């Protein structure tokens, strides 16, 4: 590198070297930092950005929850309060409350219109003028016949784009929780057990078990049977499957396999030995349905074996 180039240009060179494995030129770096007053500042600035971006990618920043009564009060606290009672009440009692206060997706009546997609297929649905949803493959989705803005994701993955209407909010149920939009673009995934909600724009409210969590743009919520946690998410990655791209930051291999199966349409199994292995990768889906993405083995660090009509992801060892 030349010493005549601006500090930021030199900082780029130094940061790439510093981030390379086995970097040992620390004395030389010290001398460069001391050489010009602007060098240390340029390097500080760039290294902070680099660290923040890398953490966004790995989702390492701690998440936070906002239980009821937190600084940002839920819009309709009554629902959260009733929600807590419903969670412990018998189904019949819950249904009675629900008539007045919530519309429970858990009690799917015949008044719901259900749409199911096969693995490897997609379906776009125009709910109304202000709301659209794209269903990923292997997904079951239901909408109330009288009011299509009340929906339920029964299984799979869907990406939503919703314009907020205060008088007629959009609600999608997942398991026994409700997601209420406040004008937004968001993605929901539900495997029958765990729910994952990512928000690209605007804000949604997640309501379950007496708790309301406000989830803003760039945030993700994971809810299992016993726990709810939020973390940052890359906004451009939200619902990226609809653009033919799968983006992961430390997600378990099993999730990746489930996504591949949903998107490609062939059964994809994972060796249990690597099911929990964290994956950080960007996978470009093939435009041809049923075809595995290129370079999958090196992107995931696995061996890809043919298994019946599908594939098996195995450890390379």
């Amino acid at each position: 590198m030349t010493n005549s180039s601006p500090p930021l240009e030199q900082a780029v060179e130094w940061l790439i070297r510093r981030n390379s494995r086995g970097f040992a030129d620390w004395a030389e770096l010290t001398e460069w930092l001391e050489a010009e007053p602007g060098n240390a500042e340029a390097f500080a600035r760039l290294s902070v950005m680099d660290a923040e971006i890398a953490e966004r990618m790995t989702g390492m920043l701690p998440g936070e929850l906002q239980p009821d009564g937190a600084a940002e009060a839920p819009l309709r606290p009554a629902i959260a309060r009733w929600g807590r009672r419903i969670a412990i009440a018998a189904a019949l009692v819950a249904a009675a409350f629900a008539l007045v206060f919530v519309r429970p997706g858990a009690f799917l009546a015949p008044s719901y219109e259900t749409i199911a997609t096969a693995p490897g297929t997609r379906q776009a649905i125009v709910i109304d003028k202000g709301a659209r949803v794209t269903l990923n493959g292997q997904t079951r989705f239901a909408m109330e016949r009288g009011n299509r803005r009340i929906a339920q994701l029964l299984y799979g993955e869907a990406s939503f784009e919703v314009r907020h209407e205060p008088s007629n909010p959009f609600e999608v149920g997942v398991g026994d929780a409700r997601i209420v939009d406040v004008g937004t673009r968001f993605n929901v995934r539900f495997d029958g057990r765990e729910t994952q909600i990512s928000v690209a724009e605007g804000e949604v409210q997640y309501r379950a078990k007496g708790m309301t969590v406000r989830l803003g743009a760039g945030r993700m919520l994971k809810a299992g049977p016993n726990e709810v946690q939020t973390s940052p998410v890359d906004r451009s990655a939200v619902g990226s499957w609809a653009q033919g791209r799968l983006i992961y930051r430390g997600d378990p291999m099993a999730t990746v396999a489930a996504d591949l199966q949903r998107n490609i349409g062939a059964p994809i199994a994972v060796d249990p030995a690597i099911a929990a292995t964290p994956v950080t990768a960007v996978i470009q889906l093939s435009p041809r349905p049923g075809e595995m993405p290129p370079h999958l083995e090196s992107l995931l660090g696995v061996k890809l074996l043919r298994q019946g009509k599908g594939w098996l992801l195995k450890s390379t060892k």
Partner: protein
Amino acid sequence: MRRPRSCAICRRPHPVSTNRPSEDRKPLGGLELVYWERRGELLRFLRARASPDTAEDVLQDLWVKIQSVRGPVEDPVGYLYRAADNLAISQHRSALRSRRRDDQWEAVRPRIDPGRLDEAIAAREQIAEADRRLRQLGFRTLQTFIMFRVHGMPQRAIAKALKVSLSTVEKDLQRSYRAIAGLRSDLYGSDEVTASPEGDNDE
């Protein structure tokens, strides 16, 4: 056990041992010995990397940090520098954050020209923008960056995995970091920019 003031590696008394924590507790591990041997140059590095006023504190944090390291470290000198560097980055980050609350940035980093303070503060808000620029570089470049920065893969291994040349990996990393820094990357030719067949359709 060797006398604490005499280094087992250099066989000389230590140049600086002012804040050496109490002796006689346990034998020093390899990392601790190297810490005391290299303390002078680590301090010099941190004076330049963090700030002259906080270098001693950061070095003390480093000492505390290595107390909890279990087992041998492959490259102790590299480990200490990297750990010191990470502590300096954390300090810069918290300085940027607290500055927004109570103007502490100036106190922490007096070497920065006050005229450029706003620029430094704006950096915090510019991170999202830098992230977006990075993602616009195309699929292969983003993949290269992730493999390099998140997985810590050597550049040769990335080249092999992506089936591209080593110089392509180098150029992709250049482009990634230039994008993060907000620098123009036309230095490397437009063919590299469009080399990703899909381009990028993020907003």
